């Protein structure tokens, strides 16, 4: 069975993929449909949804177009989710690979380091980092990457630990392959499936983290994001609940879609488990 056929067997994963496509489309179309900055005040504030033409989701406390904010916010969420996950992988994969392959003292030292970062409450550290570096896309990406690499390192280490004494790896050592070749050619390719699955879930977590940071007022002040929209409308929730409601649904759907896609990838990449699960 082909990779996609196995993926598509998981109905939820297919739904997730469709939602995800829609959100990516939103992000791409945002500058075309709403060429004006989502920060511009364009109407009187507190317009309810579905009442004024051109403002399907109404306006916010400052008279900004909620629909425009939602579309532009998709772009920021996806961007931060992807970039911060890439950075986290770039830290976690080499660390985990080296710790797992060499073992011994190297492993001990690297794992103490990883455990340290795992002990620190994630979100609190992210807050402190962004607050001190000053909120910007860069600082947010860095903060999210710094708090999310430990699980990657642990996963890769565990895979390497179990694979490094696998007979084919020992055979590679015996025929005289160098450590670099063994790590890159023999072991790493066999750890890719779980890394890909974890990465798809990490993008989801990163989007949640970003929205939480923006909600607390730690978003990049130059870009519109879903978390910011909810945070800004928090104080007027009694009068205008919809201002918080729609961006929240957008986050929920994006994160849900990514999780579903992650599960589908898991099924497709680890066919044996999928059969037991269904």
């Amino acid at each position, binding site marked *: 069975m082909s990779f996609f056929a196995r993926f598509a067997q998981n109905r939820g994963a297919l739904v997730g993929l469709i939602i995800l496509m829609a959100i990516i489309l939103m992000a791409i179309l945002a500058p075309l449909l709403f060429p004006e900055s989502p920060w511009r005040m364009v109407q009187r504030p507190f317009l309810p949804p579905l009442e004024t033409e051109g403002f399907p989701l109404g306006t916010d406390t400052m008279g900004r177009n909620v629909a425009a904010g939602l579309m532009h916010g998709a772009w920021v969420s996806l961007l931060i989710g992807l970039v911060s996950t890439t950075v986290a992988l770039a830290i976690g994969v080499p660390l985990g690979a080296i710790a797992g392959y060499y073992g011994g003292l190297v492993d001990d030292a690297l794992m103490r380091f990883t455990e340290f970062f795992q002990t620190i409450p994630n979100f609190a550290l992210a807050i402190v980092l962004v607050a001190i570096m000053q909120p910007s896309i860069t600082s947010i990406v860095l903060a999210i990457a710094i708090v999310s690499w430990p699980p990657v390192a642990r996963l890769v280490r565990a895979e390497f630990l179990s694979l490094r004494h696998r007979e084919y790896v020992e055979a590679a050592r015996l*025929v005289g*392959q160098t450590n670099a070749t063994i790590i890159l050619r023999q072991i790493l390719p066999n750890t890719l499936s779980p890394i890909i699955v974890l990465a798809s879930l990490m993008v989801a977590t990163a989007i949640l983290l970003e929205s939480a940071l923006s909600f607390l007022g730690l978003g990049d002040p130059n870009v519109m994001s879903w978390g910011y929209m909810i945070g800004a409308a928090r104080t007027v929730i009694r009068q205008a609940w919809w201002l918080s409601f729609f961006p929240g649904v957008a986050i929920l759907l994006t994160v849900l879609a990514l999780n579903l896609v992650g599960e589908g990838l898991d099924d497709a990449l680890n066919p044996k488990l999928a059969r037991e699960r269904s």
Partner: protein
Amino acid sequence: MTDTLLSIRHLSIALPHGADRDFAVEDVSYDVARGEIMCVVGESGSGKSMAANALMGLLPKGVRATAGEVVFDGQDLLQLTETQHRALRGLRIGMIFQEPMTALNPLMRVGAQIGEVFEAHNRLTPRERQARALELLTEVGIPQPEKAIRAYPFELSGGQRQRVMIAMALALEPELLIADEPTTALDVTTQAQILDLIGDLQRRHGMAVMFITHDFGVVAEIATRVCVMREGRIVELGEAREVLEHPRHDYTRALIEAIPSNAMPAAREADQSAPLLEVRHLQKVFRSRGGLFKPSREVHALDDVSFTMARGETVGIVGESGSGKSTLGRCVVRLERPDSGELLLDGVDLTSLKGEFLRRERRRVQMIFQDPYASLNPRTRVGMAIAQGPIANGVNRQQALKEAGDLLDLVGLGVASAERFPHEFSGGQRQRIGIARALALNPELIVADEAVSALDVSIQAQILELLEDLKQKLSLSLLFITHDLRVAAQICDHIIVMQHGRIVEHGTAEAVFLSPQEAYTRELLEAIPGRAQVLATA
């Protein structure tokens, strides 16, 4: 005739879609009488355990009986509801399994797990259950039963756990005991003890035993009757003695021949003047690393091991698990570094090599691994897997791949298989690929670590034949590590017997096998199931 307890009639069990065949067993019929031991013999995939699982109502998901009946004491078990079936399990039919290490709940005390059998069938008070558990543990011969009853499974050895399993199965005096390969995972000497125990209990309680095994030696040892299965069908069925002495089917004959007799291959004298490998006073201690607050532990895996082997010779290292035989092999190929002692290969000391020097010298000693499913990278084409060694040692890619093709031809797989991936091959074929890979670097010495242990008996014979053939053609020097004295006797010129990290006995294969000097070697030989019976009939 005898009093039939269990009667299997035209039983067919279907496998789920996508399996390698449609039926696990097809149109199988046999009986088990009260008080007899029925051995169901077959290699992996023969479907030998399926009927037993069906009658216990323990078939894996997706597998179901499609035709026939399983009549136990007048009742067709296939027609029972789950509740009726459950009432039978443990009470009238007991079962023990292959893997004693995982068959017990790791978080429950042994006594509680035995007590559960009574609880499941509402027998006795909790206090009486523990008293009975203690009696049972005593009966199955566990040392210090008062202590064992309060122990957790991890505190017991494999043999002891299997005894606990037997105690559990016997708790309610079932009429039928199903033993599914109960000795396969155990060391030879433990295996013999468990076999004795089962035979003994069977006589004392007069129950029927359905004994599932791949080993005809076990049949010779305990069976009343035997049923030989292959690919889901019965090949031969009859009185054990009759089948052993006059097998009618070739397949049965091949299985019986795997029982060691005293027939030895012709001994060859190798030239001892210039030894290829000299092992001197090798020491290796494994330490579990302690922390700041916990003590470390030591295991002497190799304790002053010395021997020499000549060029072109095959030396067998034989021992049970924990004897240090594998550590010895891993030291020789330098996957482990010995603590002290010397390993001289053609006069060069391998122990002192490190880093880049070691990497460059590695080609001189190569290894054939145990598990054909783990020894090949699933993502590397077979040809490339063989060529990787020469490439790492500076041969150009084109040339290396061409030579890999030739090697595949040599081990009987054909040049075309180079383009395929490991999962397209069977276990025996993969082992051939592993041999080709070991040969690719023209090593001076090959270490074969349990190289045929994971294979079925019939495949084992083919691989041994291939090795024998290659030895002749390429005059290989082979260090053959195995737990199986029978296999060692077939292929080795010299045999070294190890126990607890030391060499117990060292001599020509003939001498060790036919006139062992040490008590431990004799114990190992006597423990081989069926050997005594075969020798008696020969």
